[in-house]
């Protein structure tokens, strides 16, 4: 490999140590001049402790408003090969499942059109193809679609949905996360490729309250599997866990958030009416316990990172939704949200912030959802109640 002449002593410090090194990875692609200049410019950042990337003019695929992030070196003379260094967000398959054939095809395309560097995967879930010229965009896109791949979202659109492995491997999946993610992604191709919202909108699908795609923290619509009926118990296996060293009282009963499990030294019993489906007992004894049989999902709305008003976790909108194939209820809900937010949301106002601005009760009223106590942690503590509307209705 043609890396000897690269003077990157600082970066090479990061080839030491047991964890696989991203520097080594970039070096592996160093036959590619873009990768070489990536390393050289990065070494410069390591020297002077500042990013040397600029953003700027829109780049992208014809007819799409997103999927490519434009990026330019701020020292194009010094690093001509990364003068333009755009990324592609390539929509990953549900659950990040691949076969080797697909992977090799993707590698070939990226060898042909870009730096040969990727992120597997980006934080939203896409495959990130890291670094290509403006010129390469359209041909690369053609090759991708030819191979059955499409771009993901960027800008004020539906972002690439993602999901946990779910029924593909996990015994706790309370609905088909892979299918729901795929179905929703397909349904909203137009919304994904042609930004028309006040700001981005992210879907994430987790099969159970463990929330392995962190949907409650970072998706505008978070779909988290849960169940309604009783936890399924195999008492023999409970006894086995106890025998094999699980301290059921300390590790399970005491940590149950509603203290609804009890252990008599032989069997456990669960007051399911007080179980809040937190998963903890099931997590500790997967052979003995499983979620109930009446399964569905809780739909939560409005999580986001701090910009602008502070980070938000998602809020319960639908405590329990049966996740039937086709997901019509989910789609209708999404569209109801978008209608209202699309009309009244401010530019760069995520839906979570919008809900807070207009007030949850008003928002629910507008989208036609019945307010129920499950939507709140507790009722208001301040007496600043807007009665006017109600009184006007009484008058009528």
């Amino acid at each position, binding site marked *: 490999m043609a890396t000897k002449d690269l003077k990157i002593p600082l970066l090479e410090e*990061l080839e030491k140590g*047991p*964890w*696989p090194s*991203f520097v080594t*990875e*970039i070096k592996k*692609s160093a036959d590619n001049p873009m990768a070489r200049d990536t390393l050289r410019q990065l070494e410069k950042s*390591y020297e002077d*402790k*500042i*990013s040397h*990337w*600029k*953003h700027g003019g829109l780049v992208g695929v*014809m*007819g799409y408003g997103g999927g490519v992030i434009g*990026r330019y070196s701020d020292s194009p003379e010094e690093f001509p090969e990364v003068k333009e260094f755009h990324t592609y967000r390539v929509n*990953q398959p*549900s659950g990040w*499942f*691949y076969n080797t054939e697909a*992977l*090799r095809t993707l*590698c070939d395309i990226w060898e042909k059109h870009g730096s*040969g560097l990727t*992120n597997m*995967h980006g*934080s939203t879930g896409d495959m990130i193809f890291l670094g290509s010229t403006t010129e390469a965009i359209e041909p690369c896109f053609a090759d991708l*679609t030819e191979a059955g791949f*499409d771009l993901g979202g960027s800008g004020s659109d539906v972002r690439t949905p993602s999901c946990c*492995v779910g029924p*593909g*491997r996990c*015994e706790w*999946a309370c609905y088909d996360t892979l299918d729901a993610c*795929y179905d929703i*992604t397909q349904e909203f191709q137009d919304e994904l*490729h042609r930004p028309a919202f006040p700001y981005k909108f992210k879907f994430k699908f987790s099969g159970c*309250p*463990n*929330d392995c*795609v962190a949907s*409650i*923290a*970072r998706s505008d619509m978070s779909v988290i599997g849960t169940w309604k009926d009783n936890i399924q118990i195999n008492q023999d296996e409970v006894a086995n866990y106890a025998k094999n060293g699980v301290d059921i009282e*300390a*590790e399970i009963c005491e*940590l149950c958030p509603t203290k609804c499990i009890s252990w008599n030294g032989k069997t456990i019993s669960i007051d399911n009416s007080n179980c809040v489906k937190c*998963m*903890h007992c099931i997590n500790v004894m997967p*052979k003995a316990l*499983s979620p109930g049989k009446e399964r569905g999902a809780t739909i939560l709305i409005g999580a986001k990172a*701090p910009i*602008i*008003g502070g*980070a938000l*976790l998602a809020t319960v909108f639908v405590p329990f939704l049966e996740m039937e194939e086709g997901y019509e209820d989910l789609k209708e809900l999404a569209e109801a949200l978008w209608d209202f937010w699309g009309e009244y949301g401010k*530019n*760069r106002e995520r839906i979570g912030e919008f809900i807070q601005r207009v007030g949850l009760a008003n928002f629910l009223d507008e989208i036609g959802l019945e307010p129920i106590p499950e939507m709140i942690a507790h009722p208001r503590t301040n007496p600043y109640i807007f009665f006017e509307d109600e009184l006007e209705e009484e008058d009528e």
Partner: protein
Amino acid sequence: MVTQRITDIGPPDYRQFLPPIVKANYGKWKYHEILQPGVMVHVAESGDKLFTVRAGSPRLLSIVTIRKFADLADKYTGGHLRWTSRNNVEFLLTDEANIEPLKKELQEYGFPVGGTGNGISNIVHTQGWVHCHSSATDASGVVKAIMDEVYPHFTSMDLPAKLRIAFACCLNMCGAVHCSDIAVLGIHRTAPTINHDDLPKMCEVPTLVSSCPTGAIRPATVDGKASVEVEKEQCMYCGNCYTVCPAMQINNAETDGISIWVGGKVSNARSKPMFSKLVIPFIPNEPPRWPGVVDAVKKIIEVYAAGARKHERMGEWIERIGWPKFFELAEIPFSPLVIDDFKHAGETYNRTTQIRH
């Protein structure tokens, strides 16, 4: 012409990529066991067994490595593999006998097997100086330096519970670090410097003005041109203006650096999801190996490992022992900057006499 372009096909159908054993037992899994760090078995109702070998990854992968993974998959898994939500690679095996050879080859190739159970998995992270314009620090380098140090917790499962570290290079928090056991966050600490020549050309003043969460930006005429000025006392260096307008340079080699946050979580297990809380407002950027950050993270992990009870996540442990004790144990001086002064600050004040004296 246009009609021949293929668009809006969406991602390929995942079904074509599922291993036969998954297709056969789809949604019919019974239980799982972690056989050793990084190796799990999922047992189906049918009795079928799916073995998973999970390998750590720097996330930034060359196609050279991806092809190597493909080779390994062809050799050991019938061509089937997946990535996880924390950017690890999982090889999906049906033949238990293939586990050790695969592990060996992976490790030889430099990719450790681990990341399961009560340990530290991969660090979710962002672009940093490798690709992003607004990064206050590098991402991949800091992550590499930390993972080298916490490596023993990746290849073992010796912590009280899962410990999730996340990294983001600016407060846009693309890594969604805000709910992590330990969050490492790049921060700017000075108001943007304004390029008054470029600004009128590149940006719309009203959009720019309204992009500022604190209202620090005001329209101003500079050298006869429509530009803006920043009220420094109001700026909290969020970089929002820079994202909207490249002429508002937020990066600053002298003052940029890293902050450390602890005690967040995402899962609904036991406790409700929680945000991470700021404990170290600033550590300077020290490339290439960020010793200050690495030491801070290590120390926090050590005191957590020593103090927390089984199944207790970082935030649950701290809630039990109290924040004063945490600062004491972690030997972190209490900075006034960790006291909230944003919108809901009052909600974070201590409003009870329940105190350990």
